[in-house]
């Protein structure tokens, strides 16, 4: 026990004396969190819509003004013909082109179905789909108003129903509620895994590992002593981040914080253990960093924060079973937003504990005090 405390003291002194690293460890993740959260929003706003009104009748002008008054669109009127507006779409100057052909107003008056055309930049399929839905809703509203004016009553004896949409836990669909804890989890995991993966290999590369190897410290004590400082730092940053998120962004904390922290402390054992494991079998910091980067990118992008895990094909979902970050992100979501209790996340807890145990056992076994 005493030997561990000496190693701990050494590690902390090393961390706090490195003035260049301190801001990177403590300030940067928090700053990134506070800044990037504002950008992490899937809501589609400011769709650029070019309208080409070839009809220029009362009816078409009213449709145009309907679009102007909608908050979702930035409407522009390229004073050109339809063909050159297709060029704008190519050049990325507009997202959506609406063409109202001549005869639109006349057909409407005659009660004939009249046509309008949308050309959509479909590269970002999701954005395209949402923008197009906005546009359809606007046209729909326009038509209904028109019906109201001309007294076209809906035909009788047809089936109809009322549809209500409700959003639980986050009625305003506030992305920040999810993104603040989610990004925080990602940033703290990155810090922990990068630092721990570079730690032992750095001693190897600089040569100071020899000095540690000739001390009487046991392998287990060594790994614990290497793991503890980063574990404390990670939990500390999680606390600060959650506090700031609550203070600045008003994120709801519905469930129990002790439960969340209990889970987080097991989760960090997994991430840091992985880092140390990488550190024991690499030779240079570059290799260590590269390998942990590889895993982190996978953990983050397949963690269910940015895109839902349900959307993945079967085999990819099976891979996420081994992704500790996906469990942590899900637990954050469940405990913070829905107020899930221990019973709801017990499965996550058990899996995380098994992971923590096995990863750290392998790390202890893999570490050799003999130089090769």
């Amino acid at each position: 026990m005493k030997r561990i405390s000496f190693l701990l003291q050494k590690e902390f002194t090393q961390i706090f004396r490195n003035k260049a690293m301190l801001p990177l460890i403590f300030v940067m993740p928090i700053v990134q969190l506070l800044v990037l959260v504002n950008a992490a929003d899937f809501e589609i706003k400011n769709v650029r819509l070019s309208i080409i009104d070839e009809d220029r009748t009362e009816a078409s002008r009213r449709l145009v003004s309907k679009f102007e008054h909608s908050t979702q669109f930035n409407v522009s009127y390229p004073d050109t013909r339809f063909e050159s507006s297709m060029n704008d779409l190519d050049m990325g100057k507009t997202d959506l082109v609406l063409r109202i052909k001549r005869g639109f107003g006349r057909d409407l008056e005659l009660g004939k179905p009249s046509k309008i055309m949308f050309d959509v930049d479909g590269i970002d399929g999701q954005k395209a789909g949402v923008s197009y839905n906005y546009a359809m809703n606007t046209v729909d509203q326009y038509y209904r108003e028109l019906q109201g004016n001309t007294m076209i009553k809906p035909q009788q004896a047809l089936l109809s129903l009322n549809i209500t949409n409700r959003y639980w836990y986050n009625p305003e669909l506030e992305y920040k509620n999810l993104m603040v804890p989610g990004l925080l989890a990602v940033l703290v995991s990155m810090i922990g895994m990068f630092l721990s993966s570079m730690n032992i290999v750095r001693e190897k590369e600089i040569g100071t590992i020899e000095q540690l190897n000739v001390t009487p410290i046991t392998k287990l004590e060594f790994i614990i002593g290497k793991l503890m400082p980063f574990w404390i730092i990670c939990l500390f940053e999680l606390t600060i981040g959650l506090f700031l998120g609550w203070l600045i962004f008003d994120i709801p904390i519905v469930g129990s914080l002790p439960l969340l922290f209990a889970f987080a402390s097991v989760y960090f054992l997994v991430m840091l253990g992985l880092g140390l494991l990488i550190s024991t079998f690499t030779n240079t910091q570059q290799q260590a960093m590269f390998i942990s980067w590889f895993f982190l990118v996978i953990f983050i992008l397949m963690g269910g924060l940015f895109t839902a895990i349900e959307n993945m094909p079967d085999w990819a979902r099976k891979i996420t079973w081994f992704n500790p970050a996906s469990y942590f992100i899900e637990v954050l979501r469940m405990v913070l937003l829905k107020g899930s209790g221990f019973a709801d996340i017990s499965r996550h807890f058990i899996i995380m504990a098994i992971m923590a145990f096995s990863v750290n056992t392998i790390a202890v076994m893999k570490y050799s005090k003999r130089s090769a």
Partner: protein
Amino acid sequence: VNPKILKSFIKKEFLHIFRDYRTLLVLFGMPMVQVILFGYAITTDLRNVKIAVFDQSKDEKSISLVNEITASGFYMVTSLMENSDEIAGQFEKGEVKAVLLIGENFNSRLYNGSASVEIIADAADPNTANIVSNQIQGIVQRWVMRQNNGKAVVPGIITEVRMHYNPSMKSVLLFVPGVITIILMLVSAMLTSISIAREKELGNMEILLVSPIKPATVIIGKLLPYLVLALTLAMFILGIGNVVFHVPINGSFLLLLGECLLFIIVSLSLGVFISTKVQTQQMALMLSLFALMMPTIILSGFIFPISSMPAPLQFLSHLMPPKYFIIIIRSIMLKGVGLMAIWKETLVLLLMAFVFIMASVKNYKIRLT
């Protein structure tokens, strides 16, 4: 710059690279795995969404409505509820994403317009909740239309839609260029930032400094080998994207190659710039991988649309090199446009490369501190 000195310096760098076969393996193996993994896994296309149904009527019409939803292929009904108290439990366990509530006497009330359907979505994940809720609503509306033999909504206005560049709206076409960008950016910046920092940390810098090699030679010598390496990597990844995911290259391949080269130069010189600022490999790595990773993923327009961000963040995104590159390669690969459409972005990248290289040459100190 003396070409002979430069040549031997470059040779030294290549030896460094090729003799560390582990790093080389990692360098080519990992991005390959990532592109393949993400090409399939990162998708916003809905699939297998689990929903629960609380059908208070259980009559012919309500059953037909539920069938319609499962028949769409996007949804699986995993639980039939008997009681509305069960909803909260289902959400808290995270079992389903949405609940469809069908009101009482559905069949008979359909005829007087008072039948009700409620879609409750678990908005702890707002994005999925929004999409799921709108999609189910659409399915319900189509079902009503079908029940009326298409008579219900005689559309007064027929809208005709053409989806350009990506007609099936597959997100793989969007994400593969994004993944390529992130990998190129971070790998290139990391490679060079560490190479100078390593010379400092291991003490070789002193040997370089007392030699007659000029700062410019050192920097060019550090850049060129990695340029070759990163360009090979870029071609490799583009090849995978094309063969495995059928991401087309509609524009000129030569132009694409040139733009890749330019972007790699920007990232590499950013790496050199970082390395002139730091003393240890640890710092270099933390800056190039940790500090750059999340801003690159979030602010580049790879996942989140830039046009929807608040103004100060849109400004920040203008400072991100990957933002321009993503626009460029999406334009070339998917839209098939030429240089005319992307000259502005190209110019910005050129400028960035110039600034980073000048700053590195200026920052390169020939004295040890």
